[in-house]
């Protein structure tokens, strides 16, 4: 009896001891991260038949179990990924928000300062100090755009560096989990569970979830398969390593090492950082670049079509280089619209004014740009064809324009104040014009017969001089006449005036005469045979004043209603036609007109005439270009000719270098007069204007929108991070409630175990006394 009883008592002692040990293990790990509370399961040990009785043999400790909710563990892992992803995103965005922060030195303040300085400049537009001040702010805007661009790039660089560090951590964790897998499989191969190793593995998976999205599957042998972004990171038999493939700036991806397979990580800190580098930063940079691009374009459009207060320019060097697209060693054959420029060149027109600086006489020239056809060489040819101007491309691909000594040029919309420089409208020269305008239907060999000072001669028009004789232009006929030896010898010249052919004597005065006797081309040109024309002492010299306020470019033609003397002939009128030939005004220049009086034509343009004879019979006319936008093609901003800024986006923007050196080149004037603030006002107007390239938002509101977008995204990401973190905390609380250790509880159990131990000891004593009693009897 006693041995059985003693054995039963011993078992009870051992079971209580085991319970105490488990409690000790729990208490000592109460604050170990990832520790799951363990409990000892005890049960009765087997019974045996003794003396016909089936008797119990006491208690025995069976197994130590972890208290763990596997489902909760999985959710916690996922939630950890979500929170870490959002927190990484918030930290990236916060840095970006810092870049865009408002206050001193911020871009919006610089915009304000820049436009403020323009307003101040507008009151003294020729003041060099004020010009330098404006340029300083322009330069500050450039630097700020650059620092925004660099700052954005740097956030990306930092994020990529962080990704690289985190990937190292992922690889360490993968290795650790794999090792634990092997250990767990080893320890559990017999029976029981490797509780503490499982806890360690769960903790490793938890750590991993803070870095990336994680999915786990446990196989029957206790090994855990860990999947990251759909790829196996840890398998029951081994593990993979991740690697970062990046250019260090903007391109980054995380791949399974040496396989080229993208790990497609979307969660965790790495997922969050990848999102910042791949989506958020490019979006922000794109927005900043778009703002910079449009700011440069709009400012340059206005600046390049204005004039320095010192008047026309002698030379200009394009800031933007043409690119040899077909790599044939030359840029001149490239289409302007596809020559690697930062801005688009559109179909349109550019007006170039060339001024004789001694006399102040200005000539306006139009250059048509066809985006589909005009090549760089075509442009250079058109520019060089203008008298006193030459254009070329330098070795770096920059277009340069140079005026002859004593001449200057500009691209302003200012009116030609003396448009009839050749005197085809009652000028001093004997002048005869075609009654009709181009195109003229000529045939090969058509003639024009004249009587000049040297007698009769005839000019035959030949096909090589024309592109298409049935569609002859006034310029072609004029060129054909001017190249004729007799025409030259008789001192005659021909011109194209707004599509009409004008033939004149070279000299002026009443002694100048010639007669158009006839010729087979007469009919096509609307000329009458035997028309004699004579020059006069004082020309009518139309004088234009005012400023054109119309919305679109136009070309007006002025013709007298009859023959007569200005200010004298009763009923003499001036008819004005627009480009389409529609009459837009009729002015009285007859007996009621006092010579020199300004008459309003239309849209703010005024004209005055001197005394003299005009002739409708001789088709007197003059033409005036009225310009709302002197560069509808954006050629000047594209080539960087006379611009305020160079570059085309936030990373390349800068103030044109020669402006910094010579602030007086700032185009503050729109007429060339020093005190004219027209162009400054045009620049100022841009401050409030809706910009087409920015969705009709102004610069200011576009910038506010940009900041607000980041702020809103950040704010919502921060809110999301907060609420997800709250969820994580509550999941963690639940995990703690399930698997955590309550020391009080353990102490209570300890007392229980202690008492059980005491009881077993007591029992042992009783059994031992019983045995002693028995021995004494013997």
């Amino acid at each position, binding site marked *: 009896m006693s041995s059985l009883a003693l054995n039963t008592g011993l078992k009870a002692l051992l079971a209580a001891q085991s319970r105490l040990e488990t409690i000790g293990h729990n208490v000592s790990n109460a604050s170990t991260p990832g520790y799951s509370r363990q409990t000892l399961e005890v049960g009765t040990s087997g019974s045996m038949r003794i003396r016909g009785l089936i008797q119990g043999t006491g208690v025995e400790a069976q197994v130590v179990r972890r208290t763990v909710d596997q489902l909760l563990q999985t959710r916690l892992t996922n939630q950890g990924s979500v929170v870490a992803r959002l927190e990484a995103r918030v930290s990236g965005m916060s840095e970006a928000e810092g870049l865009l922060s408002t206050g001193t030195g911020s871009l919006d303040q610089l915009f304000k300062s820049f436009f403020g300085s323009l307003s101040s400049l507008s009151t003294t537009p020729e003041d060099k100090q004020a010009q330098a001040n404006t340029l300083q702010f322009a330069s500050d805007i450039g630097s700020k755009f650059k620092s925004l661009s660099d700052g954005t790039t740097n956030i990306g660089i930092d994020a990529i560096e962080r990704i690289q560090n985190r990937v190292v951590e992922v690889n360490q964790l993968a290795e650790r989990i794999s090792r634990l897998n092997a250990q767990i499989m080893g320890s559990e191969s017999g029976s029981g569970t490797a509780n503490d190793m499982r806890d360690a593995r769960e903790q490793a998976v938890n750590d991993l979830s803070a870095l990336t999205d994680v999915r786990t599957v446990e196989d029957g042998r206790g090994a855990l398969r860990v999947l990251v972004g759909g790829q196996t990171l840890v398998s029951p038999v081994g593990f993979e390593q991740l690697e970062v493939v990046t250019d260090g700036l903007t391109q980054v991806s995380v791949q399974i090492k040496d396989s080229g397979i993208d790990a497609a990580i979307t969660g965790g800190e790495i997922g969050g950082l990848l999102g910042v580098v791949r989506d958020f930063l490019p979006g922000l940079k794109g927005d900043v670049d778009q703002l910079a691009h449009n700011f440069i374009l709009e400012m340059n459009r206005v600046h390049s079509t204005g004039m320095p207060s010192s008047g026309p320019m002698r030379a200009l060097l394009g800031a933007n280089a043409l690119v040899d697209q077909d790599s044939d060693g030359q840029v001149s054959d490239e289409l302007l619209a596809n020559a690697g420029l930062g801005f688009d060149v559109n179909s349109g027109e550019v007006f170039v004014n060339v001024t004789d600086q001694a006399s102040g006489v200005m000539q306006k020239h139009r250059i048509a740009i066809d985006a589909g056809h005009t090549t760089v060489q075509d442009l250079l040819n058109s520019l060089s064809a203008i008298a006193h101007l030459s254009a070329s491309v330098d070795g770096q691909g920059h277009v340069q324009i140079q005026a002859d000594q004593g001449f200057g040029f500009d691209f302003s919309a200012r009116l030609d104040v003396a448009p009839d420089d050749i005197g085809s409208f009652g000028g001093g020269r004997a002048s005869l014009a075609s009654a009709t305008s181009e195109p003229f239907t000529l045939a090969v060999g058509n003639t024009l017969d004249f009587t000049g000072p040297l007698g009769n001669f005839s000019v035959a028009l030949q096909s090589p001089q024309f592109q298409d004789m049935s569609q002859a232009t006034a310029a072609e006929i004029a060129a054909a006449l001017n190249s004729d030896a007799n025409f030259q010898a008789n001192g005659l010249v021909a011109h194209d005036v707004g599509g009409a052919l004008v033939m004149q004597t070279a000299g002026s005065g009443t002694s100048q005469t010639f007669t158009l006797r006839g010729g087979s081309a007469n009919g096509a040109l609307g000329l009458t045979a035997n028309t004699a024309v004579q020059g006069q002492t004082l020309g009518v010299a139309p004088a234009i004043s005012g400023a054109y306020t119309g919305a679109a470019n136009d070309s007006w033609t002025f013709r007298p209603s009859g023959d007569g003397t200005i200010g004298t002939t009763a009923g003499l009128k001036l008819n004005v036609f627009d480009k389409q030939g529609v009459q837009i005004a009729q002015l009285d220049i007859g007996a009621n007109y*006092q010579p020199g009086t300004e008459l309003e034509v239309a849209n703010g343009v005024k004209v005055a005439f*001197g005394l003299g004879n005009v002739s409708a019979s001789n088709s007197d006319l003059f033409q005036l270009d009225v310009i709302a936008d002197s560069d509808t093609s954006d050629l000047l901003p594209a080539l960087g000719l006379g611009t305020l800024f160079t570059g085309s986006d936030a990373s390349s923007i800068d103030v044109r270098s020669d402006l910094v050196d010579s602030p007086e080149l700032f185009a503050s004037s729109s007429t060339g007069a020093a*005190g004219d603030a027209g162009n400054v006002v045009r620049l100022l107007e841009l401050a409030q204007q809706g910009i087409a390239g920015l969705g009709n938002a102004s610069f200011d509101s576009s910038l506010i929108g940009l900041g607000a977008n980041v702020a809103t995204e950040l704010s919502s990401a921060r809110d999301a991070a907060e609420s997800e973190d709250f969820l994580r905390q509550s999941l963690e609380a639940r995990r703690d409630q399930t698997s*955590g250790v309550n020391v009080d509880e353990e102490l209570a159990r300890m007392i229980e175990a202690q008492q059980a131990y005491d009881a077993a000891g007591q029992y042992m004593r009783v059994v031992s006394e019983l045995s002693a009693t028995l021995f004494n009897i013997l």
Partner: protein
Amino acid sequence: MNIRPTQASTFALVQNGLLSNFGKLVSAQEQVSSGKKFLRASDDPGASARALALQGRVSETARYVEAIAGGTRELGLGATALQDAGELITQAKEITLAGLNGTLSAEDRAVLALQLRQIKAQLLDIANTNEGGRYLFSGTDVGSKPFETGDRHGFASTAYGGNQDQHQLLVGGDLHVAIGIPGSDIFAGFEPAGASFEGLTGASNGTSTDQGLGPVTLFVRHDSTTLTIPGGVALVAAGANDTLIGNHTLAIDPVAGTVTLDAGPPRQLPAAGSANFADFELTNDRGDTVHLDFSAWSGAAANGTVVGAGSMSLDQTTWTAIDGVSTDVELVDASTNTVLHVDVTAIHRSGNELVSFTGTVNIFDALESIADTLENVDGLSASEQVRRVNLVFDEVDRNHDNVLAGLTTLGARSARMQSLDENYAGVDTELRSQISNIEDADYSQVVLDMMRAEQTLQLTQSVGSKLLQTTLLNFLR
């Protein structure tokens, strides 16, 4: 759910409570110290964007105010100058009126002429006012002196060299205002109304329209005289000193002892042997003069004709003969772009005929011309001088009106600027108060928030410490 607090969950709970309450306290403290409701845009993206948009409008307003300040200064300078100019012209008019008084001596007139020239010089200084390197009255061509005086066929003529443009400023969304008035509008208004002749020589307007600027001189020259009269009376020096042009009658009446040119007045015949017997200057009521030599006179009564031939010119270089019948002779001076049409039928004498292109004479030329007349370089009679002064006096008036009109314009612009300025001041205040409503922390609210956060934090701390202290261990002995 059964709540089973554990060591870890209790720690986490206390820790979270402490952190979140401390966070609230810090945020409240941030608001108090910065005075702003939010420090970062992401704290309240909507409000921050609204505040920025309003700040944009504040700076827009500031730009307009800046332009207005600059413009007002320029307007003020212009108005002061024009005020002075107006007063000077008034003085000039008074002096001119005094000069028209027939009783004045030549010396008195010369003094007045001197005063007029001084006024003209002062006016020129005003018109050429230069403030900080920019001329006030040259349009937008601020680097060029607007009025320069030069010689025009012997006349000190002043011409405008600026442009007609006005300095424009942007003082509102699309509100442009012009600031300067070109000097040409003020001192040289151009309202041509044709040529007027003073009437000295009898030349008058032809039938065609003329073209010219300011006062010009029509030079009428006497070329030769032809005398047809019986009785031996002859011309002196072949008529070289005569002034008469055209057909005139001569009557010698020995009975009355008079000789009469045209309608008179009759003149006493010189006594034989007297000083002027061989060179007798005979003048009619219109100042036409012929010199007669009576040395070979028979003493008989005689009636005859004197015919003067002459020619005329604008530039004293190109001369056109006076044929006595043409009603529309065109004279051209290409150097000044002047075209004058003359009816020569009534020309009766030589002389410098003042022709004024009405409505084109600037104030300087008008004053110069009047001073010239008062100095009487052409040796005119008092009535001829008066007539000549009157010819350009209207031009002084016209220019005076232009100066006053300019002053009114500047005044109106100043008033407009001022009202805009006041308007913007109001807008600015309103915008700033709106921004303050959005951005600025409400102190009473924030301080309350802060105190609440502080109390909650303290409560969390004390409860937390109790919670963490309490364990069964304390009671196990």
